[in-house]
C-alpha cells in the first residue's frame, strides 16, 4: 500500500506541470478516515495516500465543483479513480459533462474500501491506528499496541462485497496490476433478489422503516457523481413545488423516488449515496433495482463504454421492449 501511494505520487509528479489540480485522497481527521485531497502544488503531492479507507468517489466533484467543460487554460484535471469511480467518469463523459481530453486519469485497481461503521461495530475501542491494509481475505489494522485482523466480508462496504468492476475501465496510467473481481455477473443483484423475496406488504414495511429515518440532508444526492442538476434539483424548487417541508414518510419516499428515477440507466452503482447516509438507509438498493430493469429491458449497463449512447437519453423507434 505504501508503495502504491509512492507510485501514485510519482506518476502525478511526472505530469504535474500539465495539471491544474490533482484529485486524490489524504489522511483525514484520524488514521481511520481518508479525505479528498485537491493538490495544486507539486510539493503537496506527498500528502496523497492510497489505502482501503479511500472510499470517496472523486468524480462527484467533476460536474459540480470543478466543471471541466469550461477550462480557462489548457491544463488538465488529474484524478484518481477506483474501478467503480471510473464507471461514473465514463457516464459523465457519455453525457458530455466532462470532456475526456481535459482529464488525466490515474486508475487504481481496488480490493474494496472499509465501511467505518461496520468496523466500529466489531471493535468500538479501536484507537491509535497507524496503518490499514488488506492482506488476503483480511483487513489488517495496525495500532500502536497491536495488529487487529478482521474478515473482509465483515468490514467492507456493501458495494465492495458485490463488486464486479474492481479495475478501472478508463485511465491514462494504472497503478499496480488488475485484480480478480470479487463477484460475478450472476451475483450483481443478489441483494435486490433478497428483498424481492419478501411479500409486498413486508417490502413496504421494510422501506417504511428504513426511509422513516431520512432527515433530508440531501447528502445522498450531493455525493452522487451523476446528480448533475447542482442547485436546480426539483426536490427543492419552489416553483413548481413538488415537495413540502413536512418530514413525513410520503415526502421522504417521494424524494428518494425522484432521486432514483433520475438515475435510471445512469447510476453506476458506486454506492456513494449509501455510504454517506448519516442514518444508514440502504438507498443503493432502489437505484440498483432500476438498473436491473434497464439491464433486462435494454441490455444496458451504465458507465462501461464511453462510445455508447445511454438508452434513456435517446430514442430508438426500433426498440422492441418498450
Amino acid at each position, binding site marked *: 500500500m505504501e508503495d502504491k501511494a509512492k507510485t501514485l505520487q510519482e506518476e502525478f509528479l511526472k505530469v504535474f506541470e500539465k495539471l491544474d489540480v490533482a484529485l486524490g485522497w489524504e489522511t*483525514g481527521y484520524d488514521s481511520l478516515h481518508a479525505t479528498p485531497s485537491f493538490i495544486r502544488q507539486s510539493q503537496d503531492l506527498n500528502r496523497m495516500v492510497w489505502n482501503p479507507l479511500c472510499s470517496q468517489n472523486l468524480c462527484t466533484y467533476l460536474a459540480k465543483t470543478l466543471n471541466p467543460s469550461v477550462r480557462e487554460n489548457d491544463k488538465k484535471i488529474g484524478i484518481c479513480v477506483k474501478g467503480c469511480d471510473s464507471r461514473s467518469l465514463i457516464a459523465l463523459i457519455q453525457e458530455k459533462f466532462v470532456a475526456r481530453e481535459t482529464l488525466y486519469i490515474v486508475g487504481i485497481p481496488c480490493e474494496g474500501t472499509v465501511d467505518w461503521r*461496520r468496523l466500529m461495530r466489531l471493535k468500538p475501542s479501536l484507537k491509535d491506528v497507524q496503518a490499514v491494509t488488506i492482506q488476503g481475505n483480511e483487513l489488517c489494522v495496525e495500532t500502536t499496541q497491536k495488529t487487529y485482523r478482521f474478515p473482509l466480508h465483515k468490514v467492507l462496504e456493501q458495494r465492495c462485497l458485490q463488486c464486479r468492476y474492481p479495475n478501472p475501465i478508463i485511465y491514462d496510467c494504472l497503478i499496480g496490476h488488475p485484480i480478480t473481481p470479487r463477484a460475478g455477473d450472476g451475483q450483481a443483484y443478489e441483494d435486490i433478489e433478497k428483498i424481492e423475496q419478501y411479500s409486498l406488504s413486508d417490502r413496504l414495511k421494510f422501506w417504511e422503516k428504513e426511509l422513516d429515518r431520512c432527515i433530508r440532508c440531501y447528502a445522498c444526492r450531493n455525493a452522487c457523481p451523476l446528480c448533475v442538476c447542482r442547485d436546480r434539483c426539483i426536490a427543492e424548487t419552489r416553483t413548481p413545488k413538488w415537495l413540502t417541508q413536512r418530514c413525513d414518510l410520503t415526502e421522504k419516499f417521494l424524494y428518494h423516488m425522484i432521486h432514483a428515477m433520475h438515475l435510471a440507466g445512469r447510476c453506476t452503482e458506486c454506492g456513494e449515496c449509501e455510504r454517506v447516509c448519516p442514518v444508514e438507509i440502504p438507498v443503493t438498493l432502489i437505484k440498483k433495482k432500476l438498473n436491473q430493469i434497464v439491464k433486462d429491458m435494454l441490455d444496458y449497463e451504465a458507465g462501461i463504454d464511453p462510445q455508447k449512447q445511454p438508452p434513456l437519453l435517446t430514442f430508438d423507434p426500433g426498440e422492441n421492449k418498450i
Partner: protein
Amino acid sequence: MSEKIFIAQGELTAVLERLSKEMDVWVPVEMGDEKWGIRFLPYHRDTVVVLNRQSTLGPKNVLFPQVETLLSFRYQKDDDDPSKQHIDLKDRQDISPALVFGARPCDVRGFLTFDQVFLNGRYKDPYYEQRREKTLFATLLCDTEDSACFCSSVGSGPGDREGSDLWIIPVDEGFVVEALNEKGRKLIPVMGKQATPEQIEKARRIHEQVSAKHVGEDDLTRSARDFTGRFEDMDYWRDMVSKCISCGICTFVCPTCYCFNITDESRDLTGERLRSWDSCMFYHYTLEASGHNPRPEKFERYRNRVGHKFSYFPDTYNGMISCCGCGRCIRSCPVSIDIRRVVHHLKEAVDAEV
C-alpha cells in the same frame, strides 16, 4: 432521602417504564439491526437503550423538532357572499412533559446556545419556551470520547453538568444518579433506591477523573478576531472547503445549529404553517426572491458556518461560542471535513499579517 440513587443495569428498563408513565422519555436507540448509528426516540416497551457511544442524531429534535406545525388554517367561503372568505386558524399546541435520558454533556450544551437565541433575546420563541420548560435532562457523564471529540476545546468537558437536571455516572453494573436542581429532585423517588456510601464514593472518583480530562487539543474559544482576519482570504476557504459537497449533514446533526425555515404548505382550502430545519449549507438558504444569492458558492456558505459559530455568535452573546465540541459534523461528514482544523488555521493569517 439522599439525592443520590443507584439504578442497577438490570433495573434500567423498569425505571424508564415507570418514568414513561409520567412523561415522554427520550432515549438513545440504534438506527436498526446491525447499524452503528444512534438516534433519540420516545421510550416504549421493548426499546433497547444504548448508552455506550455517542448518538449520531442527538436530542435536538426534542426541543426543536425537524418540523413543527405552528398553525393550521382553513379558508371558508361566505355562503351569502361568495366573493368573501374568512380563515379559520388553529394555533394551539399541546406540549407534554418530557425527559431526555442518556444525552451527553455536549448534547445539553447545545441547548444552552439555543436558550440565548430563543429565550434570552428581545423576543421569546413560545414554541421553544414551552418545550424547554417542560423538558428535563438526565445527562450521562461521558467517558467514551473518540478522535472527533473536542468538547474541552470549546469550554465544556466530558464532566460538564451545566444545563442538566440530573447527572448519571456509570458505576460498576449500574448508574449513580444525582439531582442537580429542584426539577431533577422531583424525579429521584421514581428512579430508584438510595445509593450506598461506597457507590457514591466511587461515582465521585469517576466524576473527578473524567472531569479532569481535556478532550480536544486547542482552545477554540477565542477565534473571533482570527476569523475576521481570514474573512476575505478566499484562497484559504477554497483550500479548506473544496471537498465539501454542500449537503446538510453537518448542520442537521449539530446540537447548536438552530436555523429554520417557515413555509405555508397548503392544498385546496386547507393548510399548515410549518417551521422546519434549514441548513446554511444549502444554496436555497440565502436565495432571494429576486434570484440574487449572496452566498452562491459553498466556500461562502461554509465560511458563514464557521463565522457564525466562532465569531458572530460570541460577538452577540457575551463571548459564548455556538459549538459544543461534540464532533458530529466531523464524524458524519461524507468527506471528513474537520472544523477544528479550519478554525485552528484561521490564526496563521492574522499572525502572518502582523
